[in-house]
């Protein structure tokens, strides 16, 4: 949740305002997509909401935790225990096997993954036969599935996904979106996904449109066409 969030890069004349007094809450146990044209501030919004970046002013909350009160270590612990991430690229540690990658957030915090949850996630993402491969031996779609599994396995409060399908072909992309959808439906996972693809946004329960650092519109139960219409209206 963001309250009066402002993010300014640089200072004085050359300052760029990426987030301009944004207040928004991402509903729990729902799949939210954040959309907007390039440079609209949608990625910045996600980074600030996830504690990867700090706001210039305003506050960001994960649950009841005010991120601005946390130091680096606190933020790290928060990411480790309460947030999951899926990025567009650089999603896996090349020297670890798929299984080790999936369990990474847990092992970092010294926990052992519960076999049940691991099984559940692995089954959901159909990675059973791939667990002992290294990322280099996996296809792009498989790698991204491992990344999603890693984000889910710690049962975080919220998963942030930054263009998770950006580097994938359509079929693999649809697959990933399907997995995210079923994580919300089956396991009551909260997911926030940044994307510029209307087809991806159509998988979400709600779409938040961001333009020039402001929330422009919010659409519930979107379809690819309705999203596209709004995007066209944004002057894309």
């Amino acid at each position, binding site marked *: 949740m963001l309250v009066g969030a402002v993010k300014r890069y640089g200072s004085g004349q050359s300052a760029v305002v990426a987030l301009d007094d944004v207040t928004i809450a991402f509903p729990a146990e729902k799949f939210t997509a954040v959309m907007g044209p390039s440079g609209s501030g949608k990625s910045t919004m996600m980074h600030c909401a996830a504690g990867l*970046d700090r706001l210039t002013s305003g506050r960001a909350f994960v649950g009841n935790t005010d991120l601005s009160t946390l130091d680096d270590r606190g933020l790290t612990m928060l990411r480790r225990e309460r947030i999951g991430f899926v*990025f567009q690229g*650089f999603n*896996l*540690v090349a*020297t670890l096997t798929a299984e080790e990658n999936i369990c990474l957030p847990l092992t970092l915090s*010294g926990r052992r993954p519960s076999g049940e949850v691991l099984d559940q996630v692995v089954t959901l993402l159909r990675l059973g036969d791939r667990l002992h491969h290294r990322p280099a031996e996996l296809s792009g779609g498989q790698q991204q599935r491992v990344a999603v599994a890693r984000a889910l396995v710690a049962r975080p409060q919220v998963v942030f996904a930054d263009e998770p399908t950006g580097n994938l072909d359509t079929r693999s992309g649809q697959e990933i979106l399907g997995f995210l959808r079923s994580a919300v439906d089956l396991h009551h996972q909260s997911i926030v996904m940044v994307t510029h693809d209307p087809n991806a946004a159509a998988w979400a329960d709600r779409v938040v449109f961001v333009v020039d650092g402001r929330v422009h519109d919010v659409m519930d139960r979107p379809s690819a066409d309705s999203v596209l219409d709004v995007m066209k209206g944004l002057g894309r």
Partner: protein
Amino acid sequence: MTQMMRSAARSVLASRGRFVLTGTAIMLSVAFLLATLVLSDSLRGQAAGDIAQALAGTDAVVQGVVLGEPGGGPGDLGRSVRRSLDPDITERVAAVDGVDGAASQWVGFAKLVVDGSSVGTGTATDAGRNWVTVPALNPFRLESGRAPVEVGEIVIDRSLAGDAGVAPGDVVQVLTATGMHDATITGVATFASADAAPLQRTVLLPDGAVSAWLDTAAPTEVLVDVAEGADRAEVLGRLSALSDAEVVDGPDYIQTMQDAATSPLQFLTVFLLAFAVVAMLIGVTIIFNTFALTVARRRRESGLLRAIGAERRQVLGGVVIEAALVGTVATLAGLVCGVAGVGALRWLVGLTGVSLLTGPSIVSTTSIAVAATVGMGATLLSAWIPARRAAATPPIEALRESAAEPRVVSRARTASGLVLAAAAIAGGAVAVAGSNPVWLMPAAAIVPALVLCGPAIVTAAARWSAPVARRAAGVCGSIAAGNLSASPRRSASTALALMLGTATVTLFAIFASSLTSGVGTDVREGLQADLVVTSATPDFSTIDPTLAGRMAALPDVDAVSALSIAEGIVAGRAEAVGGIDPTALPTMFDLDPIAGDLADLRSGGVAVVGDDPALLGDTLEIEFERSTIDAPIVAVVARSTGGFEAPAYFVDSATLDASAGRLLDALVFVDLADGMVADAEEDVRALVRATPGSFLETRAEHVANSGSEIAAFGNFIYGMLVLASVIALLGVANTTALAISERSGEIGLLRAVGATRRELRRIVRLEAALLSFVAASIGIAVAVGFGWALIEVTGGADIPSVIVPWFSLVVTLVVAVAAGVGAAAWPAFRVSRVPVLELVSRDG
């Protein structure tokens, strides 16, 4: 071209961090090489120049007839042993037609003593000479004060005056072969323009004092000034007709003196150059690594350039120009630092007591050219090889491929490395079995074998260490171990630099410990006396001969026995001959007689150090400076009295005094009465302290100090190795930093999923520790093997057995790993400071 230059310059500036490290590596290597070259030039050039200048007025020299050439053992200065001249030789020379001036030159032992303690330690010798009154022939020049005239007046060289802190007018003492003399300093002199003669501390005496003080009846040599206008060759011919003398042409004499003065330095020069080569090798490895990675990172970029129509040469050119820019700047900086670094090296050499570089540094154009060429050449070559590889890649492949090098280790490479390693080990085995040093050459092939096997070794090490690392450090451990094998080639070449460093350290440590033990064995096994009085320098006897008698008179001193040493010629070779009391000595130092009876030395016999009892009964001819003796071999002993200058023959001390003149004692052994040790030792200590030129050691101290000359030299070598290791560690820092910048995305990811800064630093440090450990243990293992073979084959009598200093090696290993981790500290710090977001979004 200018366009390319500009873009290359911009690219260098853009990735400043990476090039600063590479530049530093180049700079340090060039600086090290140049400093070494300059130092060796200066050492040699200075000594040679000083001698040439000092002896410029000498046209010829008349010397005694050569008896024998030097034995050539370690520490030997390469002097010939000559028969004494006649006392009237100078008059006879002066009377020869065409001789304008003739000056006697007396050389003996004289040591300056100020306030009861002797001045000067280290490898320079203490020489007493007469002040030559013929100005054209005097190698010394008065700097202040006046020449010595009366007995009891002396002039000292400037370096000695500086060390002792004395000036003309001060009252001092001089210890010579005839004991202690009171003296007044009348002046300070320079050798030509240098502070001192090479490798000598000189006390200059008036003509009236030399014979009595230096205990020689005749001059050592006569310096000759040939009259102007006289035919030099004819004069030389007439001089050579003199009986019982030889004549040497001036230039030949200068050459001989120069060789004698610089030969110990040549040893040093070889060592210095060996280190420069190691440093350079390490430097080249680092440079190569950096450029390989730079090029790899830019593969995509160059693929794009190629795709849009850039020629192969254009892609390649950019990298090479970039390298040339970095190389030029770094090499120039290296040259400057090198000249400045000579000061540091001089200080380091000074630590051994070899303070012989008295003049300014000689920076020759050759040294600069060599250092600059090596620096530039290494840089360009290191850049060109990977660049060529990159340019040869089809553009599309380059575009598609990720920046990381393939993880696959080439089987052919490993196989050829293994074959080479097997050949090297076989060569070493043959060398040891056949005692044939030629076979050591293939054994040295272990180094290229390691270069070839490196990637495979690193991969294997990563695999083996992964479970251990995981158990010790959890997931950080497995990531660190995995990183090691993620780019095996780069890890291997980093390891190589460290491996070379530790191997050199190890090789030297084994050599030093074996040599020290070899020299010290006799003392360790033979010494039984409670106390030992030693001379000021190991290669010259300086103990007042009356000291032994005075100590024997002390209460609670059981027995005292002195050892004096003189040089004699046996079968044409100069050998040390010891004079002992054959009845008193054996109770204090067991020479371990294996045949005959030492007591028979009393009747004029000689004891031979050796292991062949059959020598008994033969007759030995020993030529001394004053007379020749024919002595029957009455005993064969297995042990000598230890140290570098240990005698190979023993005679009765009375016999030696009669044949070689009255001698100072080299060592005095003291046995204390049982039960009264502490008090008696105090009495002896007081007496020895009051006798300059003598030092007291307990049995344990003497055993420990035997071979300490090597230890002093060892300090110097270790100092050099520290410098070389600094360069190797820079390589670790460099590679670690490079690997981190390559893996920035992955590191960002780790941060995003919840790795703390501490955990990231831990991964980086662990990786460095693993790499250092692998490198250091292989380096040590290889050096132990090679060193063992080397000493077994070439050690001979000086190093009878190989002593591996396990403790030092463990310390070396620990230090290497700690230093590796230390070198990774900075990159580790950097990585943990970079904001998460920057890493995640850098390229993705």
